C-alpha cells in the first residue's frame, strides 16, 4: 500500500534580510530595494550582501501510513513548524516534495480567522469554512460542536466578549469536528485550562483510534507518549531520530542533556551584567548537573534532580557566610529559595579562598516554565555579591504522575494521594 503522506527530501531555505537602510545608507538601501523589486517573487536570483541564508529544513524524508499517529518533537526552532507549514501548503518548500493521498486538515492555531465582532455562532461557520468544511457539514455537526465547546449560552455573544479560554474551546471544538483522513496538529493543546486540555487529548486519541492519520507536534512529552505510536525527533532542520513515540521522547530528552558542548552546563559569572557587589565580585561560576552527575545545560523534566555547584571566593577568613539560590518564575515571583545556612549540622569552621558549594535538589517539582536563577553570597550578614538572572532553567512537561496528565497549573507538583470510603488509603504505600 502506498503511504498516505510521503515526504521526500524536503528542504526549506529562508532568506533573512536585514533592513536595507541599516547599512550603507539610503542610496545603497534604495539600490537593494530596486533589486528586490525587479525580482519580485523569484527567490533564485543572485542575492545581495545584506541577506543571510538559513535552512530551516534540510533534506527531510519520511513516510506516514494510513492510521499512523506520529509525534514530531524537537526544540524551538528545530524546524517542526516549518515542516508542518509545508505539509499544510501554507508555504512552498525550496526543494523536495510532499505527496498527500487523502483529504487533510491542519490545525496550526486554534480559531484561525475568528472575527471578534462576529458571534460564536457566526464564527463557527466562518472558521469551519476556513478550515475547509462545507456549509452542509457544519450545519450537520453544529449542535455537537456547540456541546463540545460548552458555550450554549454564549452562542449569540460577539467573540470579543469571550475569555481566552472560551475562545480556545470554540476554536478546538470546530477543528475537532473536521472529518478528514489526515489531521495535522501543532501545539494547540498548550493553551486552555486543564479540564479542556484533557477533553482535547481525549478527542485526539478518539480520532487516532478510529484509524485516522495524525501528525502531532508538541512540547508536551506526556501527550506525545500517550497519543502517538511513532515519534520523530527533529534537530537543526534534520531528522535526528525515528522510532516509536517512547523511544523518540527518550532520545529527545537525552539529546537535550547530551547535545550541548562540553562546557554547556557551566555558567561563567565574570561577565554577569545585573550584579551588585560590595567590594569585589566574589561569585565565579555555576555548574549544573542532573541525575547521575550528568551535566545539564537547559531543560529539566518536572521532578528531575538538579544540582547546582557554586564556585566563589572568600576574601578573608570567616565562618559566617551564606550562599543563596533563588528561583523566580516568569512572573517574577520567588517560588523557592535555598540557603546554604539552612543545612543542618553544617561545619561552622572558618574558611578562606576559593570554595565550591553544591546545592542538591533531589526532585525539582516546579511546574513547567522558565525560571530565572538569582545567586548571592552573604558575608557577616551583609550582601557581598549578588547576581540577578544569572541563568535560566527551563522545566519541561513530564509524565510526573504516571497518568499521562501533565501538571500545568499552579507553581508546584507535590506527591499526594486521593481516596474515598470505598478505596481505602493504601497502607502499604504510606
Amino acid at each position, binding site marked *: 500500500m502506498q503511504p498516505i503522506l510521503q515526504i521526500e527530501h524536503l528542504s526549506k531555505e529562508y532568506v533573512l534580510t536585514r533592513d536595507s537602510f541599516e547599512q550603507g545608507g539610503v542610496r545603497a538601501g534604495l539600490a537593494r530595494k530596486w533589486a528586490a523589486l525587479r525580482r*519580485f517573487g523569484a527567490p533564485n536570483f543572485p542575492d545581495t550582501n545584506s541577506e543571510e541564508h538559513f535552512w530551516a529544513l534540510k533534506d527531510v524524508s519520511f513516510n506516514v501510513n494510513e492510521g499512523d499517529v506520529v509525534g514530531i518533537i524537537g526544540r524551538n526552532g528545530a524546524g517542526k513548524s516549518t515542516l508542518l507549514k509545508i505539509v499544510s*501548503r*501554507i508555504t512552498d518548500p525550496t526543494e523536495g516534495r510532499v*505527496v498527500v493521498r487523502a483529504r487533510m486538515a491542519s490545525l496550526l492555531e486554534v480559531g484561525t480567522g475568528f472575527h471578534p465582532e462576529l458571534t460564536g455562532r457566526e464564527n463557527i461557520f466562518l472558521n469551519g469554512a476556513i478550515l475547509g468544511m462545507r456549509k452542509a457539514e457544519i450545519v450537520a455537526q453544529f449542535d455537537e460542536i456547540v456541546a463540545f465547546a460548552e458555550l450554549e449560552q454564549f452562542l449569540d455573544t460577539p467573540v470579543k466578549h469571550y475569555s481566552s479560554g472560551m475562545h480556545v474551546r470554540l476554536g478546538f471544538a470546530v477543528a475537532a469536528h473536521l472529518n478528514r483522513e489526515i489531521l495535522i496538529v501543532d501545539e494547540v493543546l498548550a493553551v486552555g485550562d486543564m479540564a479542556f486540555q484533557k477533553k482535547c487529548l481525549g478527542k485526539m486519541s478518539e480520532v487516532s483510534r478510529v484509524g485516522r492519520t495524525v501528525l502531532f507536534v508538541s512540547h508536551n512529552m506526556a501527550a506525545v507518549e500517550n497519543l502517538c505510536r511513532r515519534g520523530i525527533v527533529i534537530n537543526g532542520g534534520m531528522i535526528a531520530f525515528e522510532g516509536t513515540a517512547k523511544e523518540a521522547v527518550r532520545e529527545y530528552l537525552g539529546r537535550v542533556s547530551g547535545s550541548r558542548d562540553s562546557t554547556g552546563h557551566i555558567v561563567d559569572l565574570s561577565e554577569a551584567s545585573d550584579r551588585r557587589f560590595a567590594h569585589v565580585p566574589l561569585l565565579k561560576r555555576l555548574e549544573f548537573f542532573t541525575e547521575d552527575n550528568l551535566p545539564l545545560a537547559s531543560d529539566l523534566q518536572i521532578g528531575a534532580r538538579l544540582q547546582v555547584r557554586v564556585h566563589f571566593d572568600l576574601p578573608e577568613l570567616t565562618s559566617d557566610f551564606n550562599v543563596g539560590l533563588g528561583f523566580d518564575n516568569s512572573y517574577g515571583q520567588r517560588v523557592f529559595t535555598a540557603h546554604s545556612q539552612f543545612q543542618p549540622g553544617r561545619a561552622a569552621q572558618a574558611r578562606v579562598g576559593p570554595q565550591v558549594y553544591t546545592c542538591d535538589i533531589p526532585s525539582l517539582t516546579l511546574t513547567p516554565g522558565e525560571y530565572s536563577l538569582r545567586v548571592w553570597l552573604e558575608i557577616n550578614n551583609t550582601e557581598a555579591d549578588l547576581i540577578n538572572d544569572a541563568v535560566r532553567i527551563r522545566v519541561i512537561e513530564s509524565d510526573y504522575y504516571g497518568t499521562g496528565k501533565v501538571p500545568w497549573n499552579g507553581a508546584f507538583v507535590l506527591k499526594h494521594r486521593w481516596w474515598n470510603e470505598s478505596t481505602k488509603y493504601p497502607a502499604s504505600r504510606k
Partner: protein
Amino acid sequence: MPSSFEVTIRPHRGWQPIDLREIWLYRELLAFLVWRDIKIRYRQTLLGALWAVLQPLIAMLIFTFIFNRLAGVKSDGPPYPLFALAGLAPWTFFSTAVSQSSNSLVSNQQLVSKIYFPRVFIPLGSVGALLLDLGLTLILLALLMVHYRWPVSLTLFWLPIFIAAAVLATSGVGLTLSAFNVSFRDVKYAVPFLIQMGIFVTPVIYPIRDIPGSWRILMGLNPMTGVVLGFRYAILGTPSPWPVMGLSLAVSVILFISGLLIFRRMERRFADII
C-alpha cells in the same frame, strides 16, 4: 477513499496557472468571506448600511453644488444630480474596493500564515462584499430617477456587462496591489493618493464630451472611464462612444487576468514575508 485524492506539494517557480478546480472546490469559502466582510463592515455603527448610500449621496450633492452650480459644468443630457450619481455609483465602488482589497492580505495575516486556501479569495472577498453597497447606491439612483421623472430605456440590459467590467477591473487592480502590499507596504500610502487623482481622469464630474476628440480614446485606457460611461448609457440612456467603452472593457479583462497571474506568482512567498 484516499486514492481518489492526491496532491503533490513541490517548489513553484515563475508564473503559475490559475487552479480553477481548486477555486471551485472552495467556492463556499468565498461566499463566507464576502458574508463576513458585509457583516462586520457596519457593526457598531449608528447608521449601519446607510453609510453605503450616504457617501455617494453627499458626494453627489457637493459635486452638483460646486461643479454644476458654481463652475458651470453641464451634464450631457440628464439632470446633473442623476448624471453625477450614475458616475459616482461605480466610482465609489471602485475606490472603496481597491483600497480595501489592496489592504486585505496584510489585514488578514493570520489567515495567510496559519491556514491554506486559495488566497485570491481574500482580495476577491473584499471586492465582492462591496457589491452590496453598489446595489444600494443603484436603488438610490432609481429613486432619484423617479423624482426627476427620467425614463428608463432598453439599454438597461447592458448594465450587467458594465457591472461585470467594474468587478473585473477592481479585482484586477486589487489583486495586484494586495500582492505587492505584502512585500512593499508603500502600497498603503500610494493607494489613497492614486484614488484621489483617479477621479479627475475618469469622467465622473464632467461628461466625456468635454474632452477633446483625440484624447477621448486615451481616456479609454482607464477601465473606469468605460464603466462610468457604460453606467450612464445603460441607466440614463446617455449616448456614449463605443470605441472608448470597448477599449475600457478590454482593459478590464486584461487587468483581471494579469492581476490573477501576478498574484499567483507572488502568492507562494506570502506566508514567508507577510
